[in-house]
């Protein structure tokens, strides 16, 4: 269903075999119709929050007048942002250096080993 949802949302679908599989069954086609109906229903919904809601939100978002953060606090916040950005760049560099190892397979629950001469046979060269 995820691949059908992605298709309806206009996202990129890489696994065409899985998409073909999903479209080949009646449940898949029904799911697409459900997604389209849901989208139409949301667009047609004209309901809006009441005026009291906007008033409450405005009072929270408006900055209190006459009170500004001390200069030292703003400098500390800027330093934290700078450190985090640097750490992010370093991490990105390591990932790129690892040849794209950010994409990893799931952790196996079992590990099997071929045994040379038993169930692993060298090809004649």
């Amino acid at each position, binding site marked *: 269903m995820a691949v059908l949802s992605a298709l309806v949302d206009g996202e990129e679908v890489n696994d065409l*075999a899985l998409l073909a599989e999903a479209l080949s069954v009646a449940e898949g086609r029904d799911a697409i119709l459900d997604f389209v109906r849901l989208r139409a229903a949301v667009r047609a919904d004209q309901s809006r929050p009441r005026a009291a809601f906007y008033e409450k939100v405005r009072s929270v978002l408006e900055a209190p007048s006459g009170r500004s953060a001390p200069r030292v606090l703003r400098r500390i916040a800027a330093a934290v942002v700078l450190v985090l950005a640097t750490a992010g760049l370093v991490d990105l560099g390591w990932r790129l250096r690892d040849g794209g*190892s950010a*994409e990893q397979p799931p952790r*196996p629950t*079992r*590990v*099997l*080993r*071929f045994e040379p001469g038993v169930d692993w046979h060298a*090809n004649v060269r």
Partner: protein
Amino acid sequence: MDTRVEGIMVSVSRRAALALALVMAGGALTRGDGHEGLAPQKVHLELRTLATGVASATFPGGARGGELAVGDSAVWSLIVRLERDRQGEPRGCRYGVSMPSVPPQEVPEEAAHAWEARLTVRSATLERIELDVDWKRYGRDADGERRVVRGDACAITLGEGERRLLDFVWMREAPGWESCYDSLALELEAKVAEDPALADRRITYDLWLVDEGRGGPSMTRRWQMVGKQGEARDFDFEPLRRSIEGVRTQALLDTRVSGSVRGRLQDDGSLEVALQAHRTDSPDGPNWALGGHGEKRVRLLPGETVRLELPAPDPDVSHEPEGSTLRRDVEGGILAGLRERTVSLVLTSRPVE
């Protein structure tokens, strides 16, 4: 004193129990080496003739087929003859194969060959069908009696969809056949007969190729596919290329991994999966290539992930000529460096709901 001894004994017992638990856990992690109890399957066998024209390809002719369970036997006959018109003249190069339900005691006068085979299914599981085959080719004596021309009794093991040639006959000097056919042959094919209740199910395979270990960063490749119940799907990964360090030198090595995976959903919701893998290692350039192949058959829970490690080559170069590139790379530690890395396939399979 007694308390001290008792305490030591308890400590030893605990350590022994811990060691046993670790061994059992290790055993559980490495089980599935191809000797697991896999479900017995019903088999579809087909006994068929092959004809090769004088100036054309080889085509299948008549065939007798049927489904047999483990322990079942069947005796099938195939009689090959040229088709004739009402005047008894050959109708071009058309030939026919009759398949009597009861093996005949006589060979018809116009028959070129008559084959009879007793087929017994000894065992049949995923990708492994073991059969006893006792076949005979009959001809006619001058007095019209049936006589055995050739035959064999053998035990054979076939993978799913594999074929075995049982008999071959030149027809270049057979009256009426010589201008049409070069040869006739008899072959046997074995498949698993799918359970009709599960035959339309499909299975997804999420397969990763992972290269990791000392001497460099890890690399991954991914291959996703969907197969029908019992259908074999091929995979062929883009080569892994990395620099391998030896003792005094280093080399750029490629590792290519390909193979196939075949899965079958079971009544209890589990999956039986057979994975055949081929690995080939070679340096950058046509100097040498070392390969290996193997097969594992395992029973998995839906969505369970299993890792299969593919052994690196460990060639004996004692007979290699002095100065060969393979000998140089082995002695330079390049192959030892390659063995410090692990190349694995990581497979997750689940039925399509």
